[in-house]
């Protein structure tokens, strides 16, 4: 999986066959935990001693202010890559949740300010910078930091901000927002004038900031002992490269076919230059891992020049987009472009494991000569029951196969031939995945038999 593509997740087999968000125990637990964490600062604030209550509008503004504080802290937990959370839910959904809740928190902060000003227009002066009112100043700084963080995320490309630069600024601004917000609570004082409450709230915020410190500083230190080196980079069709890595003095990395990892190639373990790619090698060889990488952006265009022996760090495995995580007697893999990477891993793993399940692979690409790994896949998918269906956007003369995009005409006979316990897994451009999902559902394929991972980083 490359960062530019979109996927939707399956749940691991130990949970449910398919995660329908809010329909599975894991997702309900996640949402419940999120609500509890978000309300924790409010609960601390409401613990006695308490001053007499004020008017309803003011108390509501303060309550939602504390809720926003809880959300801002929880944002750090959502990007922590805790496998206990991301595995059953899908890391893409956790990331989407992070994005959406960030926007919600911003709206709640805005509502907090608006209500305070509308309820008492004199409060407008609190927004005057450096007015001598520390409560107002810290609140203003929190608000401005948050607006800047959101603007850099939404308009990163228009601002020509590099991905690595965005990551660093996002982390620093996130810390600034939380610190200023907590300072605002302390200096405004209406609910935090008891010393122990201030301490408790600061500790609460520090715990979440510690997560990012762990991710960016502590975890890379551990990765130093599990480094990898580039064994080779091989050119494939369609501007695609295979990056082969070997472990440096360790046993390698176990993963499930279809999962992905964040890799840092030729940089420090602490570098912000980190990119997610799907494993394309067989999961039966943890001592040799491969990634299929297409030249699409600043980093991927440099892959061809990476020399053998280059030190690389691998953070993984992540994701639950894998045929290992659901029971099925047959697999239908539907790939578009570089979405072939996780499918390649699944096909290779099946062969290495002597897994008897037949695989139908629908592979959409621009043309046959740009179809990476076509020959290998054609060789492998010759078992009884296997099938390779190429869909060419630009069909060459004499081509008798499917042309254009993956359509209902392409999928209908495949679905008809694969009745029973069949798993459909889709990986490719977002538009393609949406279209194919719709087609499958129109062909009466149950939603819990369709695996996807929608993942759109900034």
């Amino acid at each position, binding site marked *: 999986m490359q960062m530019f593509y*979109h996927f*939707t997740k399956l749940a691991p087999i130990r949970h449910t066959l398919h995660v*329908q*968000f*809010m329909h599975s125990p894991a*997702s309900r637990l996640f*949402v419940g935990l*999120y*609500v509890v964490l*978000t*309300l924790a600062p*409010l609960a601390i604030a*409401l613990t*006695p*001693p*308490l*001053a*007499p*209550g*004020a*008017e*309803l*509008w003011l*108390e*509501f503004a*303060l*309550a*939602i202010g504390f*809720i926003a504080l809880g959300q801002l802290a929880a944002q750090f937990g959502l990007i922590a890559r805790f496998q206990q959370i991301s595995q059953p839910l899908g890391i*893409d*959904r956790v990331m*989407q*949740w992070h994005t*959406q*809740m960030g926007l*919600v928190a911003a709206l709640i902060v805005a509502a907090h300010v608006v209500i305070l000003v509308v309820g*008492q227009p*004199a409060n407008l002066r*609190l927004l005057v910078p450096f007015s*001598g*009112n*520390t*409560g*107002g100043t810290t609140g203003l700084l929190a608000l401005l930091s948050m607006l800047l963080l959101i603007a850099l995320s939404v308009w990163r490309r228009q601002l020509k901000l590099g991905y690595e630069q965005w990551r660093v600024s996002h982390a620093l601004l996130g810390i600034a927002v939380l610190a200023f917000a907590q300072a605002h609570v302390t*200096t*405004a*004082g*209406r609910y935090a*004038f*008891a*010393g122990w409450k201030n301490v408790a709230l600061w500790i609460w915020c520090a715990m979440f900031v510690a997560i990012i410190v762990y991710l960016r500083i502590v975890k890379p230190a551990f990765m130093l002992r599990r480094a990898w080196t580039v064994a080779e980079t091989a050119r494939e069709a369609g501007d695609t490269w295979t990056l082969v890595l070997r472990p440096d003095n360790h046993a390698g990395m176990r993963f499930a076919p279809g999962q992905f990892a964040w890799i840092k190639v030729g940089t420090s373990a602490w570098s912000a230059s980190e990119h997610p790619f799907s494993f394309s090698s067989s999961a039966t060889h943890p001592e040799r891992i491969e990634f299929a990488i297409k030249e699409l952006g600043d980093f991927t265009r440099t892959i061809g020049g990476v020399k053998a022996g280059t030190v690389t760090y691998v953070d993984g495995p992540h994701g639950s987009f894998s045929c290992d995580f659901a029971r099925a007697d047959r697999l239908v893999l539907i790939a578009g472009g570089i979405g072939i990477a996780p499918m390649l891993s699944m096909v290779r793993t099946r062969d290495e494991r002597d897994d008897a399940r037949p695989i139908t692979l629908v592979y959409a690409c621009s043309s046959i000569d740009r179809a990476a790994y076509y020959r290998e896949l054609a060789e492998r998918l010759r078992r009884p029951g296997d099938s390779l269906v190429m869909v060419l956007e630009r069909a060459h003369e004499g081509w008798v196969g499917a042309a254009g995009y993956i359509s209902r005409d392409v999928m209908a006979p495949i679905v008809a031939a694969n009745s029973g316990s069949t798993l459909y897994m889709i990986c490719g451009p*977002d*538009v393609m995945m*949406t279209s194919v999902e719709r087609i499958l559902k129109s062909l009466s394929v149950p939603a819990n038999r369709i695996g996807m991972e*929608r993942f759109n980083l900034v």
Partner: protein
Amino acid sequence: MRDIRVSASSAAVVAILLAVAAGVAWSRSHDSGNVITGELSSADSISPAAVDSTAPIAVTHDSGIAGNVADVDGSAAADSAVYNRDCRGCHGAGEARGRRTPALRVLAVTLLTTEGGREYLVDFMLDGRVRAVDKGNVTYRNTHPPFDELTNAEVASVLNYMLTAWGNDKLLPGDWRAYTAAEVGRRRRAG
């Protein structure tokens, strides 16, 4: 395209959070807090008659210019606007509110005229107070929130209003000086 299921879930969570906020706000707006005035009740027993109410009130600025209360510079002799906005909700018109708040009528002047009382009142406004009051087996927390977000002029205005309203002006000592913004500012910086 975003996962619609995630969006629906986040909308549900937002609704839950806002509902909790609304419930908390409603409850708090009807809450008298846990302020107990046991120790302050003795101050209410001071009779206004103990103070010479016939002496004229001499009011001076820091600059030494004498004047009536009405002549004090505008920032310090503001009307009841700040008091009405920030204090009346609990303190009403200077009367005691059950066990929640003490009567500022008389008490304010009493506190002013105790040793260190002038500075104490400014500090009280800026820093608030948290203090435990033991009553038998129960400890009550006597609390007053800080109001350091008020400007120096507003703090002076509130203090001057409390000290001159509800008949308190007749209890003030003859050499009483109205608070000024500058005085509050000096105390804030010293604190």
